[in-house]
Structures are given as C-alpha cells and as structure tokens.
C-alpha cells in the first residue's frame, strides 16, 4: 500500500518513539466498507521534544494517539517506544508500558471519575501499581497537585464537577504525571478552554515538561496553539501526513497547500490586518472512500491530473522540512519518479 513516505524519520539514538506505516481502519457496519482513519503514517519523536500533530476534525489525530497507546490495536504498522515494539506486546506488557506513556484528553470533566474525590483520582494509578507507602503516595500527589495549581486540601474534599474546565484539565495533567511517564500524548487539551485558561495550561505544560523531563505529542486543530508549544509539527489530512517541519519554519514557509489553508484560517487579533477571503471551501471528504492520488486534491487550488492519480511522497525540501505534494508552494516540483530515502 502506498504510504506517505518515511523520508522525515530520523536515525538518532535519541528517538523515544518511532511509528512506521501506522494504519487504523474501522469497519462501516456490515457493508464491507471501512473508514480509513489512519492510512500508513510514519513519525518519530526525540527524547525531550514536543511534536505537534495538527489537522481538521476527523483527519485521524486522536486515532493516531490511541493507536500509539495501543488503546486501539492498529491494523498495520509498527510502534516502537523506548526500543520496544508495542504492537506485538501482550496485554500485561502493554499495561506496564502504559505507565511510561500517558494520554490526556480534550474533555477533562468527563475523563475524570465523577464520583470520586479529586485527590483519590490523582492517587489511583499509584495505588493500582502499588508504588510507595501510603505516606509517600500522599506526599507525591499533594506535590503534583500544588505544582499544577490545585489546592490539595480542596482536592481531598471535592469531586471533579466542583472544579472549572481549566482546573479539571490541571487535575488530569497531575494524574498523568503521577507514575513518572516519559511520554505524554495530549489530545486537544486546550481546545475546549477559554483563551485565558488555554494560555495558563500551555505555560504549565512547558514548565512541567522542563521539570519532569517529558516528551510530548501535542494534538490540536489550531496551528497557532500547536506552534507555541511544539518543536516540530506534522500536518495531517484525511489519514495522511502532508508536511513535517520545525515549528518556526512551518510558519515562515508553509509548503503544502493545506498547511497554508490552516495558517490563513487562524483569526488574527488585529482589525488592521486585512482578512483573508475564506481560506478554503467545504470540509474534508469522507475517509470511507478517500480521493485517489493526493487526498487533498478535491479542495486544492493547485490540483492537476497528476494529483488525482499519483500519491505524493514526503520528501525533504529544506533542513528538517518535508512535504508530500507534487506542486508545493516552496521547494520545487516533486520528481516524476519518487523514491523514499529513509531507513538508511
């Protein structure tokens, strides 16, 4: 099956997570059809790096996160975390691995057990894994709660619904840290928050990352948010990766037509800046029968016959900057015969 290429994968001892040809499909009833949620994507994350994953709803970001965690076993591909292949692990091995990789979600209120006290919710993973004495657990949980800005005494007395959305997200973050993970997959953690709370949570994640030596995958649909927190960004569209670049480079020189659309859609908080005429019409097509060739072709202003038949492969067009497009905005036309150069 044609992937989108692996030219962007790095050969470094610092690779913490390496995903290759990840494929996730969901059957559509008994029709024999399937949702092509994630179609052979590859990505890697270095230790201490933050990888941003950005794209419109339905492009497969959450599915990618869940498949990395093996919360949904992928139909194909490999996921290597800390040198171990996760897709071949038994359930017990995977449970153990999941203590070092955690996931936080967009809707913090519904991802916290509504009937338990917040302090117990944060402590629960320690209890399950029988880590430390009761006193050690309590000390650790209270320290983490204070670190994320939640009063431990209040947390001991209150249930999640007694906290605001932003506070619940802080609580989820504290819980995700309690087993000392190396990787945290943040699935739209700020998309449901006010801009003021979003800023607080973004700063908090940066601080925690530095303090706890974390590696992050940060998923969102707003490139301005993703750019703020990420070192490197992968842009997804309909189950494929279209562009990978360092955050600043992606903004300075977007190469993929879809990346440009995402950038132009962000509202500029300045009335003197002329509004872009609507950056794009319509919404992504169904991933059940994705368009042949480049999946973006039905919405792309530069699409031609080649785009409708030949799938573009990721290729390097600048330092660390990769694009899967036949006619990118920068970096020149793709060569007629494409060969990927990864796995050297």
């Amino acid at each position: 099956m044609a992937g989108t290429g692996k030219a962007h994968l790095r050969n470094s001892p610092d690779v913490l997570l390496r995903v290759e040809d990840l494929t996730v499909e969901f059957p559509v009833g008994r029709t024999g059809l399937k949702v092509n949620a994630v179609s052979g994507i590859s990505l890697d994350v270095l230790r201490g790096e933050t990888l941003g994953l950005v794209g419109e709803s339905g492009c497969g970001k959450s599915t990618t996160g869940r498949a990395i965690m093996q919360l949904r076993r992928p139909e194909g591909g490999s996921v290597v975390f800390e040198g171990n292949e996760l897709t071949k692990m038994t359930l017990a091995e995977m449970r153990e691995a999941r203590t070092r990789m955690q996931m936080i979600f967009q809707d913090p209120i519904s991802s916290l057990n509504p009937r338990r006290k917040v302090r117990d919710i944060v402590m629960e993973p320690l209890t399950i894994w029988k880590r430390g004495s009761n006193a050690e657990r309590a000390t650790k949980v209270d320290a983490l709660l204070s670190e994320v800005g939640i009063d431990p005494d209040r947390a001991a007395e209150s249930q999640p619904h007694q906290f605001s959305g932003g506070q619940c997200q802080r609580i989820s973050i504290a819980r995700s840290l309690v087993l000392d993970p190396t990787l945290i997959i943040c699935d739209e953690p700020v998309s449901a928050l006010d801009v003021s709370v979003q800023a607080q949570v973004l700063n908090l994640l940066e601080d925690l990352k530095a303090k706890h030596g974390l590696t992050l995958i940060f998923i969102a649909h707003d490139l301005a948010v993703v750019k703020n927190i990420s070192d490197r960004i992968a842009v997804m569209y309909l189950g494929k990766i279209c562009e990978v670049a360092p955050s600043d480079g992606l903004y300075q020189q977007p190469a993929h037509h879809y990346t440009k659309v995402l950038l132009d859609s962000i509202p500029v908080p300045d009335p003197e800046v002329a509004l872009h005429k609507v950056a794009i019409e319509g919404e992504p097509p169904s991933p059940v029968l994705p368009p042949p060739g480049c999946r973006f072709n039905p919405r792309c202003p530069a699409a031609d016959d080649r785009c409708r038949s030949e799938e573009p492969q990721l290729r390097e067009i600048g330092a660390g900057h990769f694009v899967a497009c036949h006619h990118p905005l920068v970096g020149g036309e793709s060569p007629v015969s494409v060969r990927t150069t990864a796995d050297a």
Partner: protein
Amino acid sequence: MSIGSTTNITQAALRDVQGPLLELTDVRTHFRTPRGLVRAVDGVSFTLERGRSLGIVGESGSGKTILSRSIMGLLPSKGTERSGSIKFAGTEVGNKSRKEMRHIWGKEMAMIFQDPMTSLNPLMRIGDQIAEPLRLHLGMSKADAAATARRLLQDVRIPEPDRRLAQYPHEMSGGMRQRVMIAIAMACGPTALFADEPTTALDVTVQAQILDLLGEQRRERNMSLVLVTHDLGVVAGHTDEIAVMYGGKLVEKAPTKRLFAAMKMPYTEGLLASIPKLEDQSHSRLNVIPGRPPDLVNPPKGCRFAPRCPYASARCNEEEPPLTATQDDPNHSYACWYPVGSPEYHEARARINASAGVN
C-alpha cells in the same frame, strides 16, 4: 397564528423607527440560589445601532450568555430577578414575559448557540425544521415554506440543498449543523442576530467560513449582529464595536479598531496577550492573566478585576471604577482607575519589570 397584532412590534414599524436598535440601561439579571444571589449581569448599559455588529468578549462566567438571553427574554422564570431597561427599537422589552417575547423571536431577534444539537430536533428532517417557523410566524403555505427552506440553505452555502433538506441533524458535521442553525435564524428575516460562541466548537477552517457567512448575511440583510466569544481574535475582523465584560459588568467598550489601537482596561490587555500569536517564536511564554474570574455571589469590593490585575493598588480594592468615556473618543469608555498608558500604569509596569529582572 396571526402576525403583527397591535400589541406586537411589527416588522414594518421596526424598520422605520429612527434611533438605536438596542438601548440597555443598567440591566441587572440576578439568580437566587442556595449559595446566595448570583449577580450574573450587574448593571450593564450600552446602545447598538441598526445594522452594526457588536462583539461581546470575556472569559467564561463573565455574564455574556446571560446578557444576550436577558435581551432575548430567554431566561429561567424561577429564581430570576431582573431590573433595568432594555429597549428594542424604542419599545421596552425588559419586562416582557416569555409568552410576549415569542412574537419577537424569529422575526425580530434570533439566536444561535455553540452547540447546534441543543436547538435542533434530532428526530425531524432539516427541511421541516426550517419550514416550521416560516409557516408558524409568516403564515406561509407548505409549498412556499419548502421553497424558502431550500433557498435559505443555498444562502448559507450548503452544497446539494435538496439532499440536505431530507437529512437528520446527526447526518451532518458540526459546521454544517451550524449553517443550518443560521438558515433557521435567518428564516423570518430578523433585525438582530445573537450568536453565542457560534464557532467555539468548530475547527479553525470551518470557524473562518462561519464567521464570513455571518458577516455576509448581516450586510445583505442590514441586520445587527451580536457576536459573543471568549476570543478577541474572533471579533477583531468581524465586528464594528466590542464590549468587554468581566464579572457581570461592562468594563470597556469601543469601536473595534480603536479598541485594538488604544485599549484602556488591563483586563482587555490581558485577554489579548493570552492569544498565541503565529508570528511569535515557538516556545514564547504566553502572558497569562493569573487566577480565575470572581465568584458572582461574593464579587470583590472595588474593581472586580483587582485580585488578578497586575497594576492594582489600594484604591482599586476599595472604590469601584465607573465606566467613563475617554477624552478623545466619546464612543470609547472603560472602567479603570489606572488605565493602560496612564502614569500609574507605567510606574506599575516598571515595578513589575524590575522585580522580574527585566530592564
């Protein structure tokens, strides 16, 4: 149902009347709760001219939704205390019952919400949901209503309108459903549309499309638009004026360009600084407003923003700053003792920078 009975405001009359479309004077909406009185809207006054667009901006819990609902007359009947005056096209509507307001909904004022699913009937086809108010409020025949429904879907740029008319809400994406809500809101040709966080749940790409659509409908129909949001970025390019709310009060109001060029309230400044800017380097630290909005049962004495304001001094904790117009622009007002740009503001900033080790 009869339309335009003498006790109602008729559309023709509304369109002729001179003066502002909306005039609010000291509007208060309080809720009696077991915890005490929630001062959700606490003395808001402003006017909105016909055909203009107003952004109402503030964090969650600042009273934006309750203010819009107070104007629409869409408030819970139990435990609600209202005072002040709300004039719509010269007629007092602040004291009208829900039943009386029903004549005004749709034809004069319409509202769309963040989650279209809460206002759409999941068991009814889209076409019927649009046609219903047309038959009810405008007395259209079945055939006319169906034709108008189709045209409305085209107006809101829904492709393949015939196929969509026969669909149910769950068969559509969030963006499509919001377009349908706009079509329903437009059905009876309202004079004012209240859009409460209409794009907050949507992707940025779809948000841009919906905001453009709202702007276009407003211009074509010469309708007033009240756009409620927590994001100053959303209103910057899509409104004529902005009202900033904090803790149930209006704390700054100005024409949009003026607000961004010369904002006075430290709160407005904080909201703007919270937005990640694309042109900033990645990992730029965001300037946050510390803490959280006040408890509206026991709001702080003095300036309600004082506990979070970096420039607050003793007076702010004691005396409440009144909403006052700036000297050079009567349309720009703010409620702050030491506004952005004042000598005290600069002194406070110098102090903050010195303690942070910045010169």
